[in-house]
């Protein structure tokens, strides 16, 4: 997938658990070791960096090693990467218990539809479809306890 910021373009290709990043003739291996609120811990060719990232429309505020840049994502860049169905799996944001499963496998769902409800820290968290599609596989049952980042449901294109 090619992403363009201002004058620069970067090409990210999934490569096993990692990504291959190419920009300006340079290629590196990128591994995500942690992702939290506006913060990414990455291993870039084995070197650990912490990046702080905020989005504001097309603007990306990025801080690495104390240096901050505001990048503007160029318009017209397609995000649909070949073979990288990035939003096909929905994971639990935090440990909790499945309160309800509102859909069944094979069912067509529309963007924003609640697929299941997770209860965590006394809050009900609705897991919603990020776009139109079909429920490919339900990975959990009502009452089941799930870990953070555990896959709850897989989706596919209609």
């Amino acid at each position, binding site marked *: 997938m090619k992403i363009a910021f201002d004058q620069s373009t970067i090409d990210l290709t999934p490569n096993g658990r990692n990504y291959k990043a190419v920009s300006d003739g340079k290629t590196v291996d990128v591994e995500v070791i942690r992702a939290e609120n506006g913060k990414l811990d990455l291993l870039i060719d084995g070197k650990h960096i912490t990046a702080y990232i905020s989005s504001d429309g097309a603007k990306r505020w990025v801080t690495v090693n104390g240096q901050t840049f505001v990048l503007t994502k160029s318009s017209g860049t397609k995000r649909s990467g070949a073979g990288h169905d990035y939003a096909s*799996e929905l994971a639990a944001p935090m440990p909790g218990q499945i309160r309800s499963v509102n859909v069944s496998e094979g069912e067509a769902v529309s963007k924003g539809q609640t697929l299941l409800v997770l209860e965590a820290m006394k809050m009900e968290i609705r897991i919603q479809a990020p776009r139109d599609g079909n429920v490919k596989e339900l990975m959990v049952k009502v009452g089941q306890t799930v870990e953070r980042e555990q896959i709850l449901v897989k989706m596919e294109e209609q």
Partner: protein
Amino acid sequence: MFSKILIANRGEIAIRIMRACKEMGIQTVAVYSEADKNSLHVQFADEAILLGASEPKESYLSIDKIIHAAKQTNADAIHPGYGFLSENASFAAAVASAKLTFIGPSADSIRAMGDKAESKISMKKAGVPTVPGFEGLESATDFKKAAKEIGYPVLVKAAAGGGGKGMRVVEKESELGEAIESARREALNAFGDDRLLIEKYLPNAHHIEFQVLGDQHGNLVHLFERECSVQRRHQKIIEETPSPLLAPKLRKQMGEAAVASAKAVGYFNAGTVEFIVDPDTLKYYFLEMNTRLQVEHPITELVVGSDLVQWQIRIAAGEKFPFAQKDFSQRGHAIECRIYAEDPANGFLPSTGKLLQYIEPRGPNIRVDSGFTAGSEVTHFYDPLLAKLIVYGESREVTVQRMQAALSEFVVHGVTTNIDFLQAVLRHEDFKRGDVSTRWVETKFNWKPGGPSFQILIAAAMADMATPRAPTRLNANEADPYSPWKTLSGFRN
């Protein structure tokens, strides 16, 4: 001692003052404008009173509204902070007439020092060296004659001035007429007073100021100097103490001159006597006295170990100093960097917006005085100071390194800041040698921001592919746009 103090200010300084009050067991009242209704200083206070619209003159500059708020909340004293009404003699007088205590010097002292022309005359009388120049000139011909006698370059500045407003450096006679006119206009706008004075401009001068502290029983001490030569547009951005320029003998002389200046106007409370020092001759000249708490007061607090705000309150309450000059010494080194919401690559233009992320550095000997947090709005109504990063160390070298490390941990997203610019100054050989004059940023320091590194691009792209397309949300209850919710799916294959 007072039981309740109203703080007639906003942002970091309001919070700084409230902390001192809380430590002393004094109740606090915040005042605020429409734009500040969700700001930290309002949340930090025991009570808060809305003054009015966001424009300063409808809120933080409204003497009547502030005194009314103090009466309404039964406060017994008002702390003005810095800026706004802090050096307004009419405000100090109005506070006193309302049977409240003004936490600052007398209205007479403010008046005597507020006028740059008058104060210069009284300093000359007190035997304090002043910059060669003239006061009370009117006509263009008089200015021309004076400038010729002093010798170019000259500085034209507002008699009622401060903060770099109504100030012009004039290199040659052909520029004088225009400089006088524009300085007059700016002075009239900013201070309602277009009187100007003219003096010799010392292009390589250092700005070195002395902290003074006086009680209401005639005791006056100085708490040494602050070197404030790193400036942009006549405004300080980095301050440190001790000054790399001063040897003990000169420090002692200047300290004594600072005390003499303050004595000449019967000064009590905290004040700052500013000098300019010619690094070649090591001659020093009185510049002006700020009759209030200074933005950069924390560096003095760190090296002398005193709490200046607590002392302001004690002095105003009538306490007598339990110490004398000999009880003070400088220990270690302290530096302050002012974190501004501004764009150094674009003429230091203020930057406004909502803070998307705001992470302060932490660690031993790191102090952050701030009035903002993630989600805060930086508006165009007020000064763009976001925070003051103050660090302490046993030597200058150690302190500079600590500041560099601390700055690199400071994360501010949503507004452009001067953090990278500050880092570049700290890295510069001239700064390392302590060889920086007040015009150094303008004339010698050539800084341009670099382009984003590969790491930056990778980070931006990774975050980008990890967030869902458009602002679609996995979860409608989710108010936080940076939630890991959205970042998860992209990291899985």
